[in-house]
């Protein structure tokens, strides 16, 4: 056979050692990576209890795991971006007339996250002989239609039960991803070697400005990024239409609200574009629009940062939507119809 290439063949033991060593290096590298991922668990998907501080968790998997822990408890669901985390779910449940509201608020959550989650919940409830009574959907006019994070990075993959991806691929990804930075950050945070490491920084959606409320936002190099383009708008409007029709088909009460925005985060020239988004959504279903009120933007105490409003604001929104007494001005929140 003349299938070997080199003209002067090296001796067999030397080649054998070379092949074995090459394969051993590759296998060792893979094994070390798998071990690091399981032990450190940077996305908090394996539930390994060794490192309890994670700076790059997969919140999409996290909300799913929380739900799976006691699925029968929930008969309503809150879909939102990270802004939705400030809602008082007990109050929401009381106003919706349900037992418990599952929180599916995820960083930069968009319809690409919410619709697969709803489809999963409807399937799951039906399989368990229950039903979903209500969906509380909080949208963000400033992010709606932008390229989604969903399944885009290692911290944003939907669980296979929602995405339809094979479980093998999902878990293989988290086992074999080489993520030195995340391992190091988690270990540093664990050791407390970094100042403030014990309190992970909140995940900020792109475009939001850091919470330095004492000074007006300066234009720095990082912040002069391109205005985000709503490259996925038509797709997300289609997903929303499907979500609305699914709720109707399954007799699920649907409430949609647009988050209030801070004028220091969303500039005047962006307002018409955001208003256009609200109009387009309102053509599909009634929506509560909380707009960009000046009084709210001026109250630093009502904001966690320039992007995320506080629980007090979320409570005012809930009270306004359900007609409960509230301290908010009368013009806070308008119901917009198709």
């Amino acid at each position: 056979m003349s299938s070997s290439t080199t003209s002067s063949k090296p001796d067999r033991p030397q080649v054998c050692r070379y092949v074995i060593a090459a394969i051993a290096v590759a296998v060792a590298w893979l094994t070390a990576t798998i071990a690091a991922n399981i032990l450190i668990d940077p996305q908090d998907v394996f539930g390994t209890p060794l490192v309890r501080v994670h700076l790059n968790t997969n919140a999409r998997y996290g909300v799913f795991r929380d739900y799976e822990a006691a699925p029968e408890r929930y008969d309503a669901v809150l879909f939102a971006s990270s802004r939705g985390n400030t809602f008082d779910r007990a109050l929401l449940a009381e106003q919706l007339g349900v037992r418990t509201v599952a929180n599916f608020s995820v960083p930069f959550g968009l319809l690409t996250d919410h619709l697969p989650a709803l489809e999963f919940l409807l399937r799951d409830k039906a399989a368990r002989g229950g039903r979903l009574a209500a969906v509380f959907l909080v949208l963000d006019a400033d992010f709606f239609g932008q390229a989604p994070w969903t399944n885009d990075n290692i911290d944003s993959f939907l669980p296979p039960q929602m995405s339809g991806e094979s479980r093998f691929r999902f878990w293989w990804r988290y086992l074999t991803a080489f993520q030195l930075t995340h391992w190091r950050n988690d270990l540093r945070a664990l050791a407390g070697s970094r100042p403030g490491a014990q309190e992970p920084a909140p995940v900020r959606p792109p475009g939001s400005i850091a919470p330095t409320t004492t000074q007006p936002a300066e234009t720095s190099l990082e912040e002069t990024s391109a205005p985000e383009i709503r490259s996925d708008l038509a797709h997300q409007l289609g997903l929303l239409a499907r979500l609305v029709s699914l709720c109707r088909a399954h007799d699920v009460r649907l409430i949609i609200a647009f988050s209030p925005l801070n004028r220091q985060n969303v500039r005047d020239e962006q307002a018409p574009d955001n208003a256009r988004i609200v109009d387009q959504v309102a053509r599909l279903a009634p929506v509560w629009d909380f707009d960009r009120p000046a009084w709210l933007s001026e109250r630093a105490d009502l904001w966690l940062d320039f992007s995320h409003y506080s629980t007090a604001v979320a409570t005012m929104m809930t009270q306004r939507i359900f007609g409960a007494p509230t301290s908010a001005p009368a013009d806070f929140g308008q119901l917009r119809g198709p």
Partner: protein
Amino acid sequence: MLFNSSEFIFIFLPLAVTLHFLVARASVTAAALVTTLSSLVFYAYWNPPFALLPILSIGLNFLLARSIAGTSEPNAHRLMIAGVVANLAVLGYFKYEDFIIAIFDARAARPPTVPLALSFTTFVQIAFLVHVWRHRVSFDFSRYAMFVSFFPHLIAGPIVRWNELGPQIADRLRYRFDLNNIALGLTIFCLGLGKKVLIADRLAPHVAPVFDAAARGEPITALAAWCAAFAYSAQLYFDFSGYCDMAVGLGLLFNLRLPINFAAPFRAASIIDLWRRWHITLSRFLRDFVYVPLGGSNCGPLRRSCNLITTMVLGGLWHGANWTFIAWGAFNGVLLVLNHAWRSWRGPRVPTRWGRFAGWCATFTTFAIGMTMFRAADIGAMAHMLLAMMGRADGPASLDHIRVGADLYSIRHGYLSESFVRAWFGVNWSVIATLSTLGALGIALLVPDTVELVDYREGEPHSDWRRAAGPLAWRPSVAWLAFIGIVFASAFTFFWEFNEFLYYQF
């Protein structure tokens, strides 16, 4: 499944190789069938229902080829023509249907959903049918199925011929485990992996913002446009030649020697030479099945020019249903015509050192211009990029639109002046991108290529392009083991990115 993925390297590949050689102990035919099955699993991993297409295609082409081999000449010729037309019809349906309809409807064509590998397997099967018609070769199903579906070349080539791979598949001695080939195959695979993951994929984020800006009609400085054109040329070369190296390496794991597809094309000093060294298996297919049947170079200079341009336009169109590919093909056709005219005028004189350098500059520059056409999203974006290269797409760039943050660190720490960066590179290119591009081109031009390092010569049309690898030449030594270990470990750190090969889209 991607060659540059951990599931391929650590699960699929070891299983496929082990199964092949284990089954071969009992039956060579069964081993060929098992590897065919492995290849179909490899294909189906992308989109299981689409695996029906290669299965049907292999089955129908096999029956057709058997008919061609077993019938008299007039019938065989008719059957061969019917087979070629049928294969092209399937390709045309998936790839060009909407493009053609859109021309009549005067609208923009939608991007087609082309089944993976269709463009390549169509050419492999056409070449096979013609070969069977010409030579009346004998073959059986297991060999034929493995020849077409063999996963190392299935998705994006090299475009193999029956006369080079068929006899190897039939050779029983090749079904024995060969450590020399395993060592060499692993080495070539790792070098290809490094080209793809460590070079091509690192250039991609620099290239995209410039071409995306062109698609939106935004200002681009001339320097940014030229740099992006050179960067994309390097990206495509390292991406595709990396893929081909990996394919060759994988073939060697099965004791099969696939033809090389690149012969250090960036070192070519003429456009004629470049096209002999770039995507060699496609060039020879187009030569044998388009250029020569059209009359080749035997019908006078005018006819030859028309044949060249037609061949290159069809070669461009093969890459996709887009006017940019047609323009790219026509542009290269014209360059080839000019190059032939220059050679005729100049005669057989050997160029001087400076003459060769001037030829290299002209070749590489025009190639990069062609790559700009190739990469552009549409004709409008292509025109915008070409205008930018002439300095006519510049304009006041607002800092609000900065898309490239690569230089931010240097600017903030005073190593670079922001006004300098913005004046020369605009908001879509950076100094770091320039350095990365220069580094990649330096490797392409100065470092011996994979097939030079390992002295692999399969399918090489000529060897006058080769440089001696000298002390860098591969041998199963500790130094080489350390080198490929570092390359593999570095590439592994990027596996999670999931970057497809550029030629998967064709």
